[in-house]
């Protein structure tokens, strides 16, 4: 059996498969259907300083090999998370990370500060690339200054590893990656969703309540691989790859391209047990190919 454990910015994961924020709830919703202990890490849904109702319905549209969503960070706020959710998940036999979002650097910093106090949360992922909120969200992720402002603010209040989730909706994702690395990020995850739109021709309206939304699913995998490839060459901190991963083959593509770990998002909606199947598939592939460790393929793309 190949060793598939990875070290992500100092955090040891039993395997490189993480579940992406906003696609796996708090993990507990999936407990009937998959053994959470077999997942490398769970990134719980986007959490903000204050509770958010998110956007109006409709929030979803099915597209070719993917879907659009405009949830808009609906969550009950960080305090509710700390008091009501954290106790339920702190003893899970896997890594639990929190995805943090906000409308201003100070919000991110304060939200992160409260999570810093939670011993069982080894790291956070900063969402500076949510395309579905008016203020903040993606606005930060598309400029060097905006991205750095958030990371620097959080770096002051949060003393464990910070993973910054990058937006693909930019001209040069490598520039943003270098900027957040310089600002103190310990890792980057890419990509967040692509900004897209769907139209209802009978009603002559956008399908989504706020017109546009984030595109995810296998349709964006080629863009995600390109972004991981560009970012992995641009920074020395680890890269977490995501975007349309639903099989072990997909995951291995990202690992070869330079990802130290990968996240599974939309595929959780199609198969709640997919994350564990992918982890097992990676292990099986490594064995078949005579690899002793997943380290033998990470970033080993020839070109």
């Amino acid at each position, binding site marked *: 059996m190949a060793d598939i454990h990875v070290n992500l910015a100092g955090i040891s994961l039993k395997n490189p498969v993480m579940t992406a924020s*906003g696609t796996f709830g708090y993990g507990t919703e999936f407990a009937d259907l998959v053994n959470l202990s077999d997942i490398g890490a769970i990134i719980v849904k986007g959490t903000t300083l204050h509770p958010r109702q998110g956007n109006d319905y409709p929030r979803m549209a099915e597209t070719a090999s993917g879907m659009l969503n405009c949830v808009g960070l609906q969550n009950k706020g960080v305090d509710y998370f700390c008091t009501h959710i954290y106790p339920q998940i702190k003893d899970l036999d896997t890594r639990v990370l929190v995805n943090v979002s906000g409308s201003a650097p100070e919000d991110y910093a304060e939200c992160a500060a409260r999570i810093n106090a939670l011993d069982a949360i080894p790291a956070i992922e900063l969402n500076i690339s949510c395309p579905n909120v008016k203020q903040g969200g993606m606005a930060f992720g598309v400029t060097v200054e905006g991205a750095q402002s958030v990371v620097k603010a959080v770096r002051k209040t949060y003393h464990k590893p910070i993973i910054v989730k990058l937006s693909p909706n930019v001209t040069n994702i490598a520039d943003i990656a270098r900027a957040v690395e310089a600002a103190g990020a310990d890792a980057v995850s890419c990509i967040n969703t692509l900004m897209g739109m769907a139209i209802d021709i009978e009603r002559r309206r956008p399908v989504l309540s706020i017109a546009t939304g984030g595109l995810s699913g296998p349709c964006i995998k080629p863009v995600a691989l390109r972004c991981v490839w560009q970012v992995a060459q641009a920074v020395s901190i680890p890269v977490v790859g995501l975007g349309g991963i639903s099989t072990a083959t997909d995951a291995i593509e990202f690992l070869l391209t330079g990802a130290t770990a990968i996240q599974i998002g939309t595929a959780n909606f199609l198969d709640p047990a997919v994350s564990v199947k992918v982890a097992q598939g990676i292990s099986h592939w490594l064995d078949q190919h005579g690899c002793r460790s997943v380290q033998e393929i990470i970033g080993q793309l020839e070109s």
Partner: protein
Amino acid sequence: MQKFLRDLTVSEVSFPHKRYVLIKLTDTQPLPPMLPGQFVEVKVEGSPSTFLRRPISINYVDTAANQLWLLIAMVGAGTRTLGTLKAGDHLNLLFPLGNGFSPMQQQGETVLLVGGGVGVAPLLQYGKVLKQQGAQPIFLLGSRTAEDLLQLDLFQAIAPVYTTTEDGSAGEKGFVTQHSILSTMHFDRISCCGPKPMMVSVARYAKQTNTPCEVSLENMMACGLGACLCCVEKTVKGNVCVCTEGPVFNINDLTWEI
């Protein structure tokens, strides 16, 4: 209730009407407990334009035959593909999902079950269960035409059935909310499933007559597990997931203008 992800076997496929397919599924092991009004998420294979699972309400559970019935309106590529399934094929189900209709509140209560179109599907199982529990279900089923009235014989075997059709080809002409029994009979409570406009007018009737009323919503959803937060309904408690807090809601918890 515990959820399962299983490949069930298609034991029978029939077409009550050209636009609807009834799929009877069975399993090698006993089917799990399911409540009336709960739903399943089916994985559609072989339909390139169908990416997400399809939520389908539970039409009927035949415990003796270990069968689960799904009554499906073939409206899009995904549901049309489900209509091509043959006996012996497998269908991957995520189930049972959601909260279901309320169990009997008091012995002998009269419960009006109002269904429209394919929305009648979950009422068959619900009516059966209410009857078994000792309540008196009464069915009020509406559709466009007589041939859209589905499973009438099965409903009639359980309890009295009143019908309306928009073209008057069966039962009283018009919408369910125009049916005469609404003015001549009393009901302890109402459960309703169908197109939203229909459910809204049923909710209005219920409010006017101070009759407790629950409705089953069909918001577009992805995961069915409360993870994607796409199927939210605005309630008095804010936005909640129809897949986990619903699909059945008491109308007093909704923010409909009624």
